[in-house]
């Protein structure tokens, strides 16, 4: 007998990080860069979970600030600065990762950054949304890491330029094909074995694994939840050309999360304890067929729900 809506508290969206097969592959490269101080360009389609993966990787990097002045920041993660394509803008973004840094002239900040990165034992820089980097940003990163690797610091640093890409276009191909020495030097610093990597999304079997994790996450709200049964159908829906325009044949975590959470919320609101094929199908249709449909909103909603959050 389904429970009525009135008897249940509102549906709670779980935002826990799931170490999916994609994240394992992605974080594996980040870990490699940290350990070997190697340079990589890492590409994945939008919505794969790159940003969440970086966030989780940094969280578990062991960084700390002690009250006695000791600070350890082994992984320094930044996003491409939204304001300005200058090296100062990137320098500011790098400084901000350390905490509150007073205003100082650019020449002083640049020197301070190098000193601070060496002092805090930075092992790897991860740049998210690196596709938005300007040539000035890339040049500054090279100069910065060169200065760190040179005496007196002699502190080589790994670098991961994480880019969202689509199609089979190699990231930064245009930049690196320029004749200037700088770009040849930059290219030369990339790892020998895996200079440019594309991390793929989830296969059908991997989707099943992720669905298992979702079952565990929502078990308290939907006690009879069985998502794994629909793994093949879900895989088929989410590799539809509309959701997979590059025909990778893989499922992104963003699409999977949206499909599952929307379906589970609907199920919960209906008072059911397990999701049905019809609900999943309806949400998949919404994502595929009615993706560009405009919803007319004219009435006041009875209850407010927090917006769903995707990944990537």
């Amino acid at each position, binding site marked *: 007998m389904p429970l009525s809506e009135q008897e249940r508290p509102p549906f709670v969206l779980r935002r826990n990080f799931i170490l999916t097969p994609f994240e394992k592959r992605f974080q594996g490269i980040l870990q490699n860069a940290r350990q070997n101080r190697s340079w990589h360009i890492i590409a994945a389609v939008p919505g794969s979970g790159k940003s969440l993966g970086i966030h989780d990787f*940094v*969280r578990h*990097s062991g*960084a*700390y*600030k*002690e*009250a*006695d*002045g*000791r*600070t350890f*920041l082994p992984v320094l993660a930044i996003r491409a600065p939204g304001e300005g394509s200058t090296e100062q803008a990137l320098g500011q973004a790098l400084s*901000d990762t*350390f*905490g*509150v*840094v*007073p205003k*100082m002239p650019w020449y*002083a900040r640049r020197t*301070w950054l190098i*000193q*601070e990165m060496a*002092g*805090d034992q930075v092992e790897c820089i991860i740049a998210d949304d690196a596709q938005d980097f300007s040539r000035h940003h890339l040049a500054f990163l090279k100069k910065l890491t060169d200065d760190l690797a040179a005496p007196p610091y002699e502190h080589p640093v790994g670098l991961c330029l994480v880019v969202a890409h689509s199609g089979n276009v190699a990231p930064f191909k245009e930049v690196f094909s320029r004749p200037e020495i700088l770009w040849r030097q930059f290219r030369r610093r990339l790892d020998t074995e895996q200079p440019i990597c594309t991390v793929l999304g989830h296969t059908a079997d991997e989707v099943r694994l992720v669905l298992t994790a979702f079952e565990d996450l929502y078990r308290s709200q939907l006690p009879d939840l069985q998502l794994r049964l629909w793994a093949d159908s879900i895989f088929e829906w989410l590799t539809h050309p509309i959701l997979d325009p590059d025909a990778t044949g893989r499922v992104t975590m963003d699409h999977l999360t949206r499909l599952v959470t929307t379906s589970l919320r609907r199920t919960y609101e209906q008072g059911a304890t397990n999701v049905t094929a019809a609900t999943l199908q309806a949400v998949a249709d919404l994502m595929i067929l009615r993706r560009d449909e405009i919803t007319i909103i004219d009435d006041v909603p009875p209850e407010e729900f927090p917006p769903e959050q995707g990944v990537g």
Partner: protein
Amino acid sequence: MTTIALSDPGWQTTFPHRVTPLYEEWFAGLLLRCDEANHWASGTTFTCLKQVSSPNRPILLPQLSVPMPDQVEYVAERLALPVQEIRSTTYLPDLARCYGLPHPLPGDLKPSLTFRICPVCLTESRLLKRTLVLRYVSYCAWHEVTLLSTCQCGSPLRLFDPQSLPFTCGTCGRGWVDLPRISPTPERIAVTRQLLSCYECFLSWGNPIFVNQALHAVVHAWEEEIVRGRKLPVQRLSYRKSSYPPVESNHVSSLSVLVLNLVKYHVYYDPKVVFWGQEDWE
């Protein structure tokens, strides 16, 4: 909070490197150690502090001993330390108790206007003690060396100098730790010990009644001087003529002047501090 992890919200609201006050450390010394720990030029943390409450109003040396509450809170937040711990580097809690004031002001203490250091305290632990700022105190009671206010190059020591590293002379670059240790004269030691003992008395367990009694005792001592037909001491006259920059006060008798008079007229006398010679008041 001892350790801050990257996932803590405090990571983004603290300086890259945190420092904790040392025993008896002065607020300004803490700011300098913060500069040094963060590889910043001398006075960088102080510049942040200036922007907190009154960006256009200069902060004078007395305000670093009795700072504004929001300045104390700012430093506490940037170091992720309890506000009380930062307050203890100032004379705020002591003056609050001594005068029964909720918000003590620099004029209530009137600390020294000259920045001075003890080179031995600096050598041992990069310490600028709170007592360095007490007026008329001219030597370090811990190490028995004279407090220095000028470098060997002749330049006056500047607490904050954006052109130099913390704890160094802005003119010649010499580290303050390398300045000479000069032993004070026994006469100077005698006077300073009495002053320190009197300061300690007020700062440790002073209260408004105690301060009032002390004031009456000083007035009584002055009256006796006049009855006896003695001339007022030169130092006192010159003191009255001397100018102390206008600093905010709660219009109470400043502690430094009170202590000076109590010791000078022997109203306060600590028998533990024994000296049989001539006192040096210069």
